C-alpha cells in the first residue's frame, strides 16, 4: 500500500545560497531502511519537477535515521536576491512529506 512520507518521517529544511537542504528523519528507526530504498535523489528530483533548476544530492545519516537532501537551484538565487516567499527554503521540507512511497501492509 502507498503511504505519505508525512506518516513515516519528519523533516526540517534550510538554505545555503541558492540551495535548499531537507533533512528527512524517520519517525521510527525501523522506517529508515524504507526511506533509504525509496526516497532516492532521482525520485526527489522528479517530485520537485518545476520547482528546482539544479540537481539533487543525497547523504545518509544512519546514526540519526535521517537522510539529507541538497536541492540545487531551488531558491530563485537565494538569500536577499530571491523573490520567493520561502527564500530561505524553510518549508521545502513539508513539500517533500507529500511524496508517497510503497509500504508492505
Amino acid at each position: 500500500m502507498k503511504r505519505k512520507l508525512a506518516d513515516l518521517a519528519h523533516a526540517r529544511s534550510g538554505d545555503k545560497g541558492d540551495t535548499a537542504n531537507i533533512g528527512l528523519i524517520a519517525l521510527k528507526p525501523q522506517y529508515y531502511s524504507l526511506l533509504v530504498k525509496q526516497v532516492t535523489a532521482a525520485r526527489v528530483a522528479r517530485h520537485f519537477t518545476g520547482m528546482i533548476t539544479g540537481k539533487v544530492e543525497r547523504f545518509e545519516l544512519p546514526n540519526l535515521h535521517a537522510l539529507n537532501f541538497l536541492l540545487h537551484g531551488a531558491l530563485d538565487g537565494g538569500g536577499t536576491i530571491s523573490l520567493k516567499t520561502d527564500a530561505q527554503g524553510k518549508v521545502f521540507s513539508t513539500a517533500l512529506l507529500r511524496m508517497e512511497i510503497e509500504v508492505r501492509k
Partner: protein
Amino acid sequence: MTSRPATVRVAGGQGFWGDWLEAPYRQVTGGPIDYLMMDYLAEVTMSILQKQKSRDPARGYATDFITQMERILPIIAERGIKVTANAGGVNARGCAMALAEAARQLGLGGKLTIGVVTGDDLLGRLDGLMARGHPLKNLDTGRPLQDVRDRVLSANAYLGAGPVALALQRGAEIVITGRVTDTGLTLGPLMHTFGWAPEAWDRIAAGTVAGHIIECGAQCSGGNCLKNWKRIPDLANVGYPIVEARADGTFDLIKHPGTGGRIDVASVTEQLVYEMGDPREYITPDGVADFTTIQLAQAGRDRVRVSGVKGKPATDKLKVSIAYFYGYKAVGTLVYAWPDALEKAKAADRILRQRLKDLGLEFEAIHTEFLGASATHGPLALKDVDVAAIPEVQLRVGVRARAEKPVDRFTREIAPLILNGPPSVTGFAGGRPKPEEIVAYWPALIDKHMVQSSVELIAA
C-alpha cells in the same frame, strides 16, 4: 592553578539578531549557567552594520546587545556568568566601549573585563589581497571578486573559537567579537574550561556540534519542531537550550526547569539537519565535524545526551563573507476572494505582466506566487484540491532589476488593478510597495595565514 570543573553549562540566549528579547534574561535567572552565548550575525547583517559605521564611526555593532546586557549585567556580575557574543559586528571595540559605559552607569565600573576579538574585517585589505594573488572567487559561481569589486560593502573572514578561548584565558568576562562563527562562541568556552588543545579534533568537533545545536536558540528545544508539534508544551514559556558539557567531549542538551518546549531526540535531530550540507564534513575554522558519528540518547526528561562525535583536522582556509550591492527589488500583493479566487489572481497576474511588457520595462526576474494555493508547495499543492472552492488567494508578484527605475514603475502598477482588473479584490491597505535595495552575498575562501585575529582587553 585551580582545578577544572567536571561540567560547564553554556546557555543559548539569542539565535539571531531579532530573536526573543526575554531569552537572555530567562537564561541567566532560570537556573545555574556558566556562560551565556549570543549569536547576532547573519550573512547580510555585516553590510548593514558597515553602512551604519560609514555614517557614524561609533556605530556598526548590534545595539540591541547593549540594551539586553543592561538588563542582565547586575545579575551576571553577581553570579559570575560569562558572556560570548558576536554582537561586535564591524566595530567590536565600539561595542565594548558602549558596554563599558553601560556598566559604569549601573555602578559596575571596575568590576568587568571585556575581551574584544578583531581581525575578521577585510574590507580595507581587499585590494591588497587581490593584488597579492587572492582572487576571492565566488564559491558558487567561480567568478573572481574583481567582477563586483566596486560594489563591495563589507568583507569579513569567519574567525573560530581560538580567539574567544584566548580572551577568556586572559580574564575576559564578556567576550565581544566581530565575525566569529556561531559555533565558535560555544566551543571557545569549552576549550577554555577544559583546556582542550586546538588539535584535539574529536573534542573540537564535539564542541562544534554543541554550538550548532544551540546556535538557533529554541529551534532545538521545541520551537519550529514538526514531530508531534501539537503536543509540545507551553511554547509561550519556551525554554532556550543549555549545553551541559564534560571534559571528554560528551554533553547533554537541557533547559531550565519550569520552562516550556521540549528537548528530545526528535527536536535535537531536527536542528542537527538544519542547513546541513555534506554531513561527513561540517567545516569550521576550528576543525571538521563528522555528523554521521553523532549519537543521541534520551537521558531524562528534557535531557538529550550527545556522544561519539568524531572530528578531522581543520582546513588551511577560512571562509570569507562578502556583501555587495546588487540592484533593486519590490513585491506587490493583492487578495482575491471566492468564487474563482485562484483564477482571478492568475488573470490579474497575466494583465500585470502584459502591462509591464507594454511599458517596455526590463527586469532580471518577475516572480509570481499564489498564497493560499501554491506559494510554498508549487504544483504539488494543487494535486488533490478543488481549486474552485479555495476561499481566497493572495497574488504576490515580485520583480528584480539592476536599475531602480523599472522597479519603481512596477510598484505603481499594482493598485490600478483594484479598479481596472479582475473582480473581488482587496487587501491593498499597506499602500504602494517600496523598491528595496538588494545587498547580495559573495561567499569565498582565503588562506588562513592571511588573517590574524587579535584579542584586546577593556576594563569597564
